[in-house]
């Protein structure tokens, strides 16, 4: 109940000055103490040892339906069920699994999705009826609103993609049953995402669960005889395979085409970003970059492509979320590789299924902070979004300025470790300024945010004297962040009032090392 959650909550102030709870859903938590400040101890989490004696020698692990699979995997009240978002808003598997659990009479489940989408809105009913106790994972749209209003029984816990791997690997969270949607699988449980009617690209988000969960169920609508080649999920980690008619709606899994923004302001921002990358000297032979599938990011790829052609340089690798725009770079020889975490459109899915230079990655290789390095810090420039950024370059991606929890973290926090982290943002959205004195929720500390690009100009973090020196003589509008902020405030009628928020936490934001970087507070009606 929210009542005992309030009663049991004590707070400390972390190194960013944010008040964070010392326990989260009954487990002690550490406050954020600075980037790289918290050293992990101990060994990785281990799932129970299994024996081949308990699995069919034929390798056929098929069971008739999800209910049977859940029963075999020890479904009981209070267990944690995980699902993954590689089918995005087309996913049918998460709701099927939770509904099957409800039919079996389970209560107080914890749902741990790698991300949630609008198609998961019915989980609200399952929380109301007591089947699901709370969600630990990104909460968007209606689920975010439900959590923000304080209706959820437990605290929401938001992690980055890398942070989710870290938490599972470190044993910070335990997954009882992982349910993995597989566009192609064999009866042994080998599974892959690049082929089949529901092809979605990489299954990387499910990889940690397949390794560390007590039990693993693979659900597929494209069963092939052993072996499923290639396989990203190893059947040796899988308990049961369930065949269903459809794991998702293909039209919502990937978009037919992803489209560059038509907004003149956003196109201008994208052009500034590309010129910044060029003028700062980042655009050179063998460089690398990452940009997502948002309108500005796609327009950036469009601009940087032309600059690469003009300058006669090629990238060693680009990081997905992949789209047709990245695939074009690969096919035109402008990059040697696409290292892909998530595949957004049909061109991307076709490419990852057919071109060996288009490689599926996982949060382990890309993002996990508790590993021996990861790819994110090796990327020369990354282009990201945010809802707000403050004059100290701290940035928020999870809440809106009114305090409502509306977005997940995704790979955003992990990407901040790149050589040059660029936030590409309109300077205001429907009157709401993006540059503020203090962000509502710190999702990333300012020391890792290097550049803010808006349609009114570009602010470089004063820490990055190297970038500022490289930009000497550039005709780009480089301006102090405070100056851009004042200009916007003049137009929109001053800085926004601070929204009045309740004193009860509804969710916490984890940093990539498992410490708590900020708290999300209840938004009163």
């Amino acid at each position: 109940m929210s009542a005992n959650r309030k009663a049991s909550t004590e707070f400390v102030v972390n190194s960013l000055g944010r008040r964070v709870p010392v326990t989260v859903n009954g487990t002690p938590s550490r406050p954020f103490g600075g980037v790289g400040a918290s050293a992990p101890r101990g060994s990785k989490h281990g799932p129970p040892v299994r024996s081949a004696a308990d699995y069919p020698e034929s390798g056929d692990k098929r069971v008739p339906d999800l209910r049977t699979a859940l029963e075999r995997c020890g479904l009981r009240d209070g267990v944690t069920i995980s699902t993954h978002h590689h089918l995005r808003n087309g996913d049918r598997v998460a709701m099927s699994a939770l509904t099957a659990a409800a039919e079996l009479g389970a209560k107080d489940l914890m749902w741990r999705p790698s991300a949630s989408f609008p198609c998961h809105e019915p989980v609200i009913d399952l929380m109301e009826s007591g089947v699901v106790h709370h969600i630990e994972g990104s909460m968007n749209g209606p689920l975010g609103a439900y959590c923000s209003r304080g209706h959820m029984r437990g605290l929401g816990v938001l992690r980055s993609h890398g942070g989710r791997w870290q938490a599972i690997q470190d044993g910070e969270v335990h997954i009882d049953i992982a349910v993995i949607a597989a566009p192609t699988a064999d009866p042994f449980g080998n599974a892959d995402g690049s082929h089949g009617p529901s092809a979605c690209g990489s299954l990387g988000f499910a990889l940690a669960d397949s390794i560390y969960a007590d039990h693993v169920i693979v659900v597929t609508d494209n069963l092939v005889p052993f072996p499923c080649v290639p396989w990203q999920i190893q059947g040796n980690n899988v308990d049961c395979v369930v065949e269903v008619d459809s794991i998702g709606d293909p039209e919502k899994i990937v978009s037919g085409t992803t489209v560059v923004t038509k907004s003149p302001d956003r196109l201008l921002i994208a052009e500034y970003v590309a010129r910044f990358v060029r003028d700062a000297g980042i655009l050179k032979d063998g460089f690398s970059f990452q940009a997502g599938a948002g309108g500005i990011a796609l327009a950036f790829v469009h601009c940087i492509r032309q600059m690469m052609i003009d300058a006669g340089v090629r990238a060693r690798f680009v990081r997905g979320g992949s789209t047709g725009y990245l695939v074009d770079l690969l096919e035109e020889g402008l990059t040697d590789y696409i290292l892909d975490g998530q595949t957004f459109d049909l061109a991307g899915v076709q490419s990852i299924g057919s071109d060996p230079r288009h490689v599926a990655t996982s949060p382990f290789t890309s993002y996990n902070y508790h590993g021996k390095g990861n790819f994110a810090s090796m990327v020369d420039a990354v282009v990201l979004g945010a809802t707000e950024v403050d004059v100290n370059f701290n940035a928020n991606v999870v809440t809106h300025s009114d305090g409502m929890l509306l977005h997940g973290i995704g790979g955003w926090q992990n990407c901040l470790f790149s050589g040059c982290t660029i936030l590409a943002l309109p300077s205001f959205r429907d009157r709401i300024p993006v540059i503020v004195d203090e962000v509502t929720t710190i999702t990333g500390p300012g020391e890792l945010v290097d550049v803010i690009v808006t349609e009114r100009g570009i602010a470089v973090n004063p820490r990055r004297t190297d970038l500022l020196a490289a930009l000497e003589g550039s005709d780009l509008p480089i301006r102090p962040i405070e100056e851009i902020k004042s200009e916007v405030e003049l137009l929109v009628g001053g800085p926004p009032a601070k929204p009045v928020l309740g004193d009860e936490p509804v969710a916490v934001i984890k940093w990539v090392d498992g410490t708590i970087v900020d708290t999300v507070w209840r938004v009163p009606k």
Partner: protein
Amino acid sequence: MSAAGRGEAGRPGDDVRSDLHVIVELTDGGGTEIEVVSKVASLYGASIEATTRATLAGLGVEHARVRIDDKGAVPFVIAARVETAALRAGAGPGGDGRPNRSVPERPRTARDRLRRSRLYLPGDQPKLQLNAGLHGPDGVILDLEDSVHPAQKDAARMVVRNALRCVDFGHAERMVRINQLPLGLDDLVAMVPERPDLLLIPKAETAEQVAEVDTRIREILAEPPGGDPPIWIMPILETALGIENAFDIAGASPAVVALTIGLEDYTADLGVRKTLEGSESLYARGRLVNAARAVGAQAIDSVFGDVGDEEGLRTWAARSRGLGFEGMGCIHPRQIRPIHEAFAPSQAEIERAMAIVAAFEEAEAKGLGVVSLGTRMVDPPVVLRAQRLVHVARQAGLIEEPDS
């Protein structure tokens, strides 16, 4: 039109952004009650109410019921919508609902400044106006005429007037296209005190119309006739009669800095189809260029209507420059750069022109009557053209200036 005592303004609906819908009911007593529903209520709710109160107080409205459905409008838009609704409700016209000026007044622009691109901004769509200057057009046109529905003329007037006070359009020349006369004369009352740099008169057909606007501008500003023009004028010739009178119109007032043409209306008037290569308007455009140059004014071409066809735009603009035009209209920011590039002299042209100017200056210094470049003699008109080209190139920032 609204019933007496009640007025509405702005846009209702869920797809509205950066705008609002206002209902004002004038009442006999009880002060002013304001009900605000806004997507930014927790951040700007108090500000919305304060803007509303200040606007009504300025208009002399003491008792009213106001309902606001806001979708993230900035203050000058809220003020414009509240004023429009109050006037529609029957509030007395004597008040002043203008928001405080938040951009400083600037000196009037130069007569012969670059006018390569002028970006059309529908007067009743404030969202498009907020960032227009950032895209670097030589001019913005806040339009009260064709892009505004006849029922919203009063609303657009309020938005544009307030935008002139509150939006920083950067280096762009601030232009307003008034309505066709005589309605356009009423627009002047609201526009002229805000000192736009230039007014466009649509469907100009006679010199008298231009003179009438010029006179009215001076009356509103209480400036004597005959002095330096306070606001520039660019007549738009859009009819066969207008084209025939081009020279008279261009010379009707020293305020006329440019003539431009509206090809949609012109081709309709001729009863011909407007084509991509534009041969049907060749005569009109040639006549207009000649008339403009005859009085030392600029000739500015029409707009290119297909935003998606950048190649077509470049081709049109290059041909337009060849005819003697110095710029054209834009209906989308993405047309600005192709137009600037098309109207820019090439590097080779600039270098040759600079060499001619240098040779001329050298000849002057030596007291020689004949300018020569290498083995060739350069005629005076060639020198004149070269000087003009260097001037334009310098304004466009195409000539590297030695550090001063």
